C-alpha cells in the first residue's frame, strides 16, 4: 500500500520535473531573441523579462522535490556517517522532521501569501497567482520526499 503510494508520488514528481525542465528552452530562446532584437534591430521582445521570471519560477519550483529525490540538496554527512547506526538514524529522523516542519510551513503559507497578493506583472499584466501557488505544489511534493526519507530512516533504525 505504502509502496504503491510512494511509487505514484515519486513518478508524479519526476513527471512534473520534466515539465519544468522543458521551460529551459523557451527561457533560452526568448532571452536570446530579446537581446538580439534589441542589439541588432532595436526591437526587444515585449515582456520578455517578466515571462522569463515566471518560467524560472516554474522551472525551479517543479524541480525542488526532484532535487531531493536525487539527494541534491547539499548536506554534511561526515559526522553521522561515523556514528553508530541507531544514533545516526535517530539524528537523521530528527533533522528530517525539522525539514518537514519548515517545508510544511512554507507550503501552507504559499496559499496564504498567494491569496493575499493580487499582483500582476508590470507589462503583460499576467496574474502571478497561479505561479505563486506552485510554491505550495512544489512544497507538498518536497514534503512527501522527506516523508519517504523518514520512513527509510525509521526502517534502518528497526533493522
Amino acid at each position, binding site marked *: 500500500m505504502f509502496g504503491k503510494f510512494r511509487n505514484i508520488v515519486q513518478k508524479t514528481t519526476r513527471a512534473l520535473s520534466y515539465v519544468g525542465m522543458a521551460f*529551459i528552452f523557451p*527561457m533560452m530562446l526568448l*532571452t536570446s531573441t530579446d537581446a538580439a532584437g534589441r542589439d541588432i534591430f532595436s526591437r526587444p521582445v515585449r515582456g520578455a523579462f517578466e515571462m522569463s521570471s515566471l518560467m524560472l*519560477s516554474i522551472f525551479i519550483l517543479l524541480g525542488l522535490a526532484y532535487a531531493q529525490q536525487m539527494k*541534491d540538496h547539499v548536506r*554534511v554527512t561526515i559526522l553521522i556517517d561515523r556514528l553508530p547506526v541507531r544514533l545516526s538514524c535517530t539524528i537523521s529522523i530528527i*533533522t528530517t522532521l525539522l525539514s518537514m516542519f519548515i517545508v510544511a510551513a512554507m507550503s501552507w503559507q504559499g496559499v*496564504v*501569501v498567494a491569496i493575499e497578493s493580487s499582483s500582476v506583472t508590470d507589462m503583460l499584466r499576467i496574474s502571478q497567482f497561479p505561479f505563486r501557488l506552485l510554491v505550495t505544489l512544489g512544497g507538498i511534493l518536497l514534503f512527501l520526499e522527506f516523508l519517504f526519507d523518514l520512513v527509510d530512516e525509521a526502517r534502518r533504525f528497526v533493522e
Partner: protein
Amino acid sequence: MIADPVFIGILGALGVFLLIFLGMPIAFAMMFVGFVGISVLSSVDAALPVTASTMWETVSFYPYTVIPLFVIMGSFAGSSGMTTELYASFEKWTRRVPGGLAVATIGACGAFAAVSGSSVATAATMGTVALPEMERFKYDPRLSTGSIAAGGTLGFLIPPSIGFVVYGMLTEQSIGKLLISGVFPGILLMFAYAFVVVMWVKLQPGAAPMIAEPVSWKEKIRAVNGVKEPLFLFLFVIGGIYAGLFTPDEAAAVGATTLLLVAFLKRKLTWPALFKAMTESLRISAMVLMLVAGANVFSYFMALSTIPVQAANWVTSLQVSPYVIVAMILFIYLVLGCFLDAISMMVLTLPVVFPIILALHFDPLWFGVIAVLMMEAGLITPPMGLNLFTVAGVAKGISLETIIKGATPFLAAIIVVAFLLTVFPEIALYLPRMMKG
C-alpha cells in the same frame, strides 16, 4: 522583547552550524533557524509568511535565470566534443615542458572553464579525457589526478562562474563586473598551477616521463584550431558582457543557444545528451536557489538580531590592520572549505562577513575574487573536497588518499595567488574598471 537580540542571533548561528553538522540539508537548516529566530525576535505571525514569500521572490527573480542557463551552456560544451580537441591541442604545445601532459590538462581545464561555470563538470569531463593519456605515459597517479582536481577548480574562477553569480546576488554587486574581474586572476592561477606541475617534475623527474616523439611546427599550428571554438564563444559571451552588449543573463542565453546550434550542426546532439543537459541544469539550479532562499530567510533573521552591524562596528574598532582581519576571514574559509561546499559556504557566511568587509573599506569586487579563490581551495581540501570525489569517480582504481596527496601541492598556488591579489588588487580590478556603467 525578552532577550537581547544579539544573544538570540548568536544562538541561531550556532544552531545552524549544529544542525548542518548533524546532517540536515543546509538550505532547510538555514530556513528553519531563520524562521525560529524571526519568531522569537518578532512574532510567529511575522515569521510564517516570510518562508513562502522569500521562496517566491527567489525563484521568480529574473537575474537568477543566469544559473540554469550557464549550467546548460557548460553541458552543451561538454557534449559537443570540445574537451578532446582542447586537450589534444594543448598537448602539442606543452610536450617539451616537464610534466607536459599535466600542464596540458591544466591548460585545457582553464580553456574549458571559459565556457563552463562548474568546477565539478570541468574536472569530470577533463578527467575522462586526460587521465587515460597520463596513465598511458606512466605518469605518477598523484600528479595526474591532482592536476585534474586542481585544474577543475578553474571552472569556479574563470567566467562564466556560478560562484560569482551567487556572490553578486547576496551582496548586490554587479554580476557582470564580478565575472569580468575573474578573468586575469583565473589566468594567473592557471599559470601558477602549471608552475606547480613543472616544479614537481623538476624535483621528481620520475613522476612524469618525457614523451620522446617531437611535434613539428606544422602540427602545432594546426593544433590551434582546437582552441578556436571555446575561444570564440568566450570572446562572444564574456566579451559581450564586457562591452555592455549583453547582461549576464542574456550572454548565458545567447551562449547556450549558440552551443546548442553548434552541437546540432556537428551532429553531436543526441537525445540522451540533451536530456542529461536539461536534468543537470534543473538539479543544480534547484539546489542552488533553494540554498539562496534558505539563506535569505536566515539573513532576515540575522539583520533583526543586529549582528552584522554590531560585528562590523566591533571589527572596525579593533586596533589591528584590516589585512589581519581579512587574513583571519580567509583562514576561516579555508577551514570551512574542508567541510562545506562553495555555495553553502558563501550563503552561510556572507550575511555577516560582507558588512565587515565594507566597513573595512575593501573593494567588494576584490573580496568577491578572493572569496571565490578560497572556495576553490575548499574544492580540493579533504575530507569534503568535491573535486577530489569527482576525480575519484572518474579515476578507477586510484585511491582517494592518492588524489588528496596529489591535490595538496596545488593549494600553495591558490594561496600565492590570493597573496598576489591582495598586494596588487589591480589584477582583479583593472578589467571591471574599464567597463561602462
